[in-house]
């Protein structure tokens, strides 16, 4: 049996689905009708096609009758397409030579009272599927090799967890950390809520573990410069900043720092303490090697000091080398995990609280370092203005968080860490009076509410109200907090000796640059965007790249650790295989048709700029090329190419135009032709059926992967073939956000439809006849309402007005389609 030899022998199977379909449609007649369609060799109906006997029937026919295309008219392809693809491939047929007609969700369930109009629709849907089947070609899944190594970017607790899990499974892992030591924010914390474990005591062993693993390559003080490639095959370039200290020789004796004459504010101590120009960030740092900060060192160029080298040489280690230069490291990995963490909002920007103006206003992280016994004050709480121990401390919550002037979102962990810091203060200083100004206390998750209660039992006062202002009494340097106490309903003021601000968490500096390097997305707040908020919370829109921890959004330690493990599991899913399979519904550029190849001066960049996945590239004066491993198969470039040089496998122009032709074969002026994206709108129409929402049966649906695939040619062809109304529907695109599963396909669909509408109006076709709507997978009701609404509109026009408009535009449409379509006979075959 030769699968490639033209349209060949098609088998059509109409499923009764018990009475789900057969209760409304005449399945026997439908099968009989199917048998009259060109190239259909056999057509049968059966009670349950998806059950074993139904599948056995298909397999038997493929073998005995030599079928080389199979169409099943049953439920939604979103339901059983995988089942039947597997079924035909078990019988030796390529799985992409299978097509489905959705006569349940899109017909029997939503038109139970439509009588023969439902049968007519089912016939059209079957004819459309058969027409597409005639043009199907066998496709092979794209196989890419997998480099069984991972890269983790960011060595905070979440990244460390991912590294250790992957290393345990047995994969080689590169860990790139920008700072001189791993540990991240957690290393700066004193204790952790709600158990009051010492933060570095539980994190330290994990950090050391990372450094001891033979299959973990730790690149600290380094940054990811460049990433090329695709899932399974990322080429990574990392720049290592020079330490100026040879880690193999440094024994961390500290003689160098003792003699260094330079002192600068210590970042690790959030500027509260000092460090030397040659230093180790904190005692538990990993790697423990000293590092020379070349921005503050006196002696590098020209050599003016060299005290540290003398001391080091004297100690015998001879580890310091002032001539060290940045080092470029290149390696290949199969997957990447991004765990870049967070920063805190600059509190001085929020002027009403006086941070940076009044010395006794401090940030939560400054307090955290002060409470820490290893911190700059040895664990003593002192007023920065006079070094005295305070008697009354006030905490202010939601500083910048939940505030449209700064950050609209809730930072999530501040309620708990403020309670934690308050509890620690109260524990160290039982007489200290503590007031926490809050808006809402958010203490969800295990053990947190109990911890809140413990704080109240300790006598910590909670005042509901967001302070409007902090001012200072210049004689005492005491602070006055002006607020409302909402539970008394009265404005109040409170004098405190220290005010601590809980600023909002913000994306780590440099996140933006990294997203461009990796081609992943951020959300409206600048945190990394997950592929799906519920079902793919660890994945990104780029296959093979995962996110975890606070880089994705503020979260506490247990949640960050859980995500680190989750990211490791998602990465291992790919790394554990030698080959990774990619669905072959990708785009490909015809070298002959691409204008870049035909006219070296053309310099056309359209497809390259449309691709949200950077899957298309082109050498100078060469045709564009799609990297199939990066292509996600939306088809936006295919629709956008002005030279029709790009094809999407399994959703070719030819296949879709043949569907349109069948769907508009009878009384097209009474029909609504709807192009629905697979992920949202087609699923929304499925839901309308599942929910039994009835709507007019004159709508005919075409499934595309993304609304971005809907070519101008399809829309023009539809009107040329006499369509009454045309709908393009995709994932929701509103001012609140964009749900497109391919990042921006619907944005291009919108531009295209809006500009074409003006062209059509110029030809005499009313603009309202081409609709663009966003329907999510949850909006079955909205889909039904939309079709009702469009049908009302269609009736207002009336068939004669529609025909008149279409006739007027026909010559122009024909001309435009002849110009742009490579195979005009596909379209003109209809006339």
């Amino acid at each position, binding site marked *: 049996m030769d699968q490639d030899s033209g349209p060949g022998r098609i088998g059509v199977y109409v499923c009764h689905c018990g009475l789900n379909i057969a209760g409304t449609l005449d399945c026997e007649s439908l099968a009989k009708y199917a048998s009259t369609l060109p190239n259909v060799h056999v057509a049968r109906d059966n009670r349950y096609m998806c059950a074993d006997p139904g599948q056995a029937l298909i397999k038997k026919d493929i073998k005995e009758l030599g079928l080389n295309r199979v169409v099943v008219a049953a439920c939604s392809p979103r339901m059983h397409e995988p089942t039947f693809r597997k079924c035909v491939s078990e019988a030796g047929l390529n799985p992409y030579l299978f097509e489905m007609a959705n006569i349940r969700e899109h017909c029997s369930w939503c038109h139970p009272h439509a009588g023969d109009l439902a049968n007519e629709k089912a016939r059209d849907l079957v004819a459309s599927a058969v027409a597409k089947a005639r043009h199907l070609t066998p496709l092979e899944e794209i196989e890419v090799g997998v480099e069984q190594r991972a890269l983790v970017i960011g060595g905070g607790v979440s990244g460390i967890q991912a590294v250790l899990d992957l290393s345990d499974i047995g994969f080689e892992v590169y860990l790139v950390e920008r700072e001189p030591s791993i540990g991240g924010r957690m290393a700066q914390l004193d204790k952790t809520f709600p158990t009051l474990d010492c933060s570095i005591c539980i994190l330290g062993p994990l950090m050391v573990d990372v450094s001891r693993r033979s299959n973990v390559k730790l690149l600290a003080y380094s940054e990811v410069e460049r990433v090329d490639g695709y899932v399974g095959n990322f080429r990574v370039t990392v720049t290592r900043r020079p330490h100026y200290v040879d880690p193999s020789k440094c024994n961390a004796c500290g003689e160098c720092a003792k003699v260094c004459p330079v002192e600068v504010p210590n970042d690790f101590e959030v500027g509260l303490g000092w460090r030397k120009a040659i230093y180790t960030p904190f005692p538990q740092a990993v790697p423990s090697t000293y590092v020379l900060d070349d921005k503050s060192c006196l002696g590098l160029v020209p050599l003016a000091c060299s005290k540290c080298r003398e001391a080091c040489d004297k100690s015998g280690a001879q580890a310091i080398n002032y001539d060290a230069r940045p080092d470029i490291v290149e390696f290949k990995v199969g997957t990447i995990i991004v765990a870049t963490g967070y920063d805190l909002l600059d509190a001085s920007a929020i002027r009403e609280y006086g941070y940076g103006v009044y010395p006794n206003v401090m940030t939560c992280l400054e307090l955290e370092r002060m409470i820490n016994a290893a911190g700059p004050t040895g664990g003593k709480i002192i007023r920065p203005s006079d070094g005295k121990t305070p008697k009354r401390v006030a905490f202010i919550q939601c500083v910048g968080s939940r505030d*449209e002037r700064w950050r609209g979102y809730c930072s999530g962990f501040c309620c708990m860490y403020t309670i934690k810091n308050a509890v620690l203060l109260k524990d160290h200083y039982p007489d200290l009076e503590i007031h926490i100004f809050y*808006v809402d206390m958010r203490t969800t998750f295990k053990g947190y509410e109990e911890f809140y209660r413990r704080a109240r039992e300790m006598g910590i006062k909670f005042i*509901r109200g*967001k302070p*409007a202002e902090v001012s200072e009494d210049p004689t005492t340097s005491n602070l006055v907090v002006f607020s409302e106490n909402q539970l008394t309903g009265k*404005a109040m003021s409170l004098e405190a000796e220290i005010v601590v601000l809980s600023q909002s968490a913000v994306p780590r500096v440099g996140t933006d640059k990294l997203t461009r390097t990796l081609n992943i997305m951020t959300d409206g707040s600048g945190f990394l965007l997950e592929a799906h908020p519920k079902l793919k919370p660890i994945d990104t829109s780029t296959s093979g790249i995962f996110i975890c921890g606070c880089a994705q959004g503020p979260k506490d330690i247990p949640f960050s650790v859980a995500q680190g493990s989750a990211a490791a599991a998602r990465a291992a899913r790919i790394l554990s295989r030698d080959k990774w399979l990619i669905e072959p519904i990708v785009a490909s550029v015809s070298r002959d048709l691409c204008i870049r190849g035909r006219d070296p001066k053309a310099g056309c960049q359209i497809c390259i700029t449309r691709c949200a996945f950077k899957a298309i590239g082109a050498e100078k004066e060469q045709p564009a090329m799609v990297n199939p491993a990066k292509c996600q198969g939306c088809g936006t470039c295919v629709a956008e190419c002005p030279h029709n040089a790009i094809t999407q496998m399994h959703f070719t122009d030819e296949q879709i135009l043949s569907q349109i032709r069948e769907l508009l074969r009878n009384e097209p002026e009474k029909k609504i032709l709807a192009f629905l994206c697979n992920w949202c709108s087609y699923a929304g129409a499925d839901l309308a059926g599942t929910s039994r929402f009835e709507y007019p049966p004159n709508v005919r649906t075409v499934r595309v992967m993304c609304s971005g695939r809907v070519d101008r040619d399809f829309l023009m062809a539809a009107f040329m073939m006499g369509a009454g109304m045309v709908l393009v529907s995709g994932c929701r695109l509103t001012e609140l956000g964009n749900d497109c599963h391919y990042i921006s396909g619907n944005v291009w669909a919108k531009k295209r439809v809006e500009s074409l509408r003006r062209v059509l109006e110029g030809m005499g076709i009313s603009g309202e006849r081409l609709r663009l709507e966003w329907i999510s997978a949850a909006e079955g009701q909205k889909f039904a309402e939309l079709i009702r609404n469009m049908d009302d509109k269609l009736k207002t026009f009336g068939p004669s007005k529609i025909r008149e408009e279409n006739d007027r535009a026909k010559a122009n449409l024909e001309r435009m389609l002849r110009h742009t379509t490579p195979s005009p006979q596909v379209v003109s075959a209809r006339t």
Partner: protein
Amino acid sequence: MGATEKLRALAEEESFRKKLAGCYQCGMCTGGCPVAHVKPDYNPRRMLEAIILGQYDEILSSDLVWLCTSCHSCLERCPQRIEVSGLLVELRNLAAESGNVPKLLLERAKRIAETGQSTPISKASLVWREKLNLAPVSPVNVEELQAILQATKFPGWPERTRSHANGTTS
């Protein structure tokens, strides 16, 4: 439409309703309000809450709305960018329409409408001015002023003042 209905219409208007929905009762408006710190009954946050809860009559009949000094601290500070002080101006306009306006304030308004001056100029003050070599008080063009007041629906405009007195509104 009466003042209550007008307030209801305002509160239910889509864009305003969405804006007000931002209010999560943090109390930053009240905490920074100079009036609230000396007059504890006065509480802008609770006025917003009353509008959210639809207690329109309660607000419009309260004399507290007249205490706002229009310092606009609340507007500056609101973390949800709600124009609290602007809303309070609207509440005062509607309260006036419903007849809830301090008598003295109304007298002042009337005087401005009729003479262009809120405070009568006494003969004694003219004498002092002369002694201090100050320029004579320039006369107010009442006609122009009235045109402005009419166009801006100033509550002291005679027609409106009358309607406030008998409790009907235009």
